[in-house]
């Protein structure tokens, strides 16, 4: 499993985002840190997860989701980037507080 996982991670990193290859990731709204959000989230999953959950998540909800990805799912996202991603998701895919 490790060889495969490392190989896929390398593909993801080398291509900028593996997601760019599968056609499910070109949909995020333009805005500050949209590219960062796409690059980091799409290492492991297509960004269509974001609009799918956008109808109800507030800032606290997006914060919880991003930190779940880091702490539970092992996403390699430093905290300063996490804060930028949360701010982007809250502004463009969050509901009013």
């Amino acid at each position: 499993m490790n060889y495969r996982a490392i190989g896929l991670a390398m593909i993801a990193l080398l291509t900028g985002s593996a997601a760019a290859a599968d056609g499910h990731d070109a949909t995020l709204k333009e805005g500050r840190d949209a590219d960062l959000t796409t690059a980091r989230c799409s290492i492991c999953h297509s960004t269509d997860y974001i609009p799918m959950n956008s109808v109800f998540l507030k800032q606290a909800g997006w914060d919880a989701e991003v930190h779940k990805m880091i702490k539970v799912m092992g996403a390699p996202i430093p905290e300063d980037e996490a804060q930028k991603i949360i701010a982007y998701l809250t502004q463009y895919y969050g509901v009013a507080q």
Partner: protein
Amino acid sequence: MATRRALLMAAGGWVLGGTGALRLARAALPSGAADPQTLEAIAGKKPLIRRSGRPPNYECPAAYLGEAITPNDRFFVRWHLAHVPEVDARSWRLQVAGEAAGRSFELSLDQLRHEFEPVELIAVCQCAGNQRGLAEPHVPGVQWGPGAVGNAHWKGVRLKDILARAQVKADALEIAFEGADGPVLPATPDFTKSLPVWKALDENTLIAYEMNGSALPRWNGFPVRVIVPGWAATYWVKQLTEIHVLNQPLKSFWMNTAYRVPKGKFPVGDRFESQENETSTPVLEIDVNSVVSNVKAGQRFPARRPLTIQGVAWDSGGGIQQVDISLDGGQSWNPAKLGKDLGRYSFRPWHFTYTPERPGPGSVMARATSSRGAVQPQDWTSNPAGYHNNSLQKIDFAVI
């Protein structure tokens, strides 16, 4: 194991191999086929509702849930992790081992087919999160509508027959399952699941190599998957590669943290005691539920002409006793006619005919009752991950 998986990936992982097919399939969609929900045909499937592309999560449109058996190319698709390899049936092996197994061995697909008694069973496969997207308040997760469910005629072997060969020891506690799928990053928890020994030894718990008379589609677990009739699809591990006989509870994010409900919030039926803790228990049985297959929200029907409403109903294995229909938002109910009984774990088709008398707004609700007396509730019982949503659904239409 790592070596074989590396080879599987080299043979064409999802990220590399799926791309062309996906794009082609989407371009081939007839114009007008896509409604607000995005329809997309992935390799080997007819258009399904795309919830996420990678990992692939695709829902069966309700229109294809009107028949007792769900066609393979319309069967819903649900994966947790993005690496879903194309498994080569000839080199595939099922490894059986574990500290509570008297002996360990591996099986080829030919051995599985010929060295054990073949068994056939019709059973509903339903995601624990089915209807999550219809819940209020919303909870995060794949926002499934009513179509993360399907019913198929499975053929395979009894898990208990395989376990008999493994000489399960007296201290065996759980039977754990591992599939060929995996995460992109090594740090992501791999998808592993377990069953209590008593459920693994149930004569209806199968290792299936056929689905509706064909090999399983890749997206539904080719070459073999676990069949756990009555229990949520999270236990129906796909692309099965390993069975472990454990003498302690499986440590897995997907058992210990995910797929759980707060203790005491739902009626207790089956128990999985070794995975229970102080505050939560694993999701086990699916609930009595129904779906209307041939009425879409906003659809128009002519007045003074008979209208036949149809769909299916199911539960966790008691069988369906009755399905009632309401045309007035749940104030009054009338029994639907039940179709053929294909077994207690199967979809039960139903239909209901009436003649709308005058133009105006109309609505339909279906309410299933199991032979055990369980009835679909008006409201969903809120829980953090959005499970057990079998609440009544109302579809508004127009009579013209």
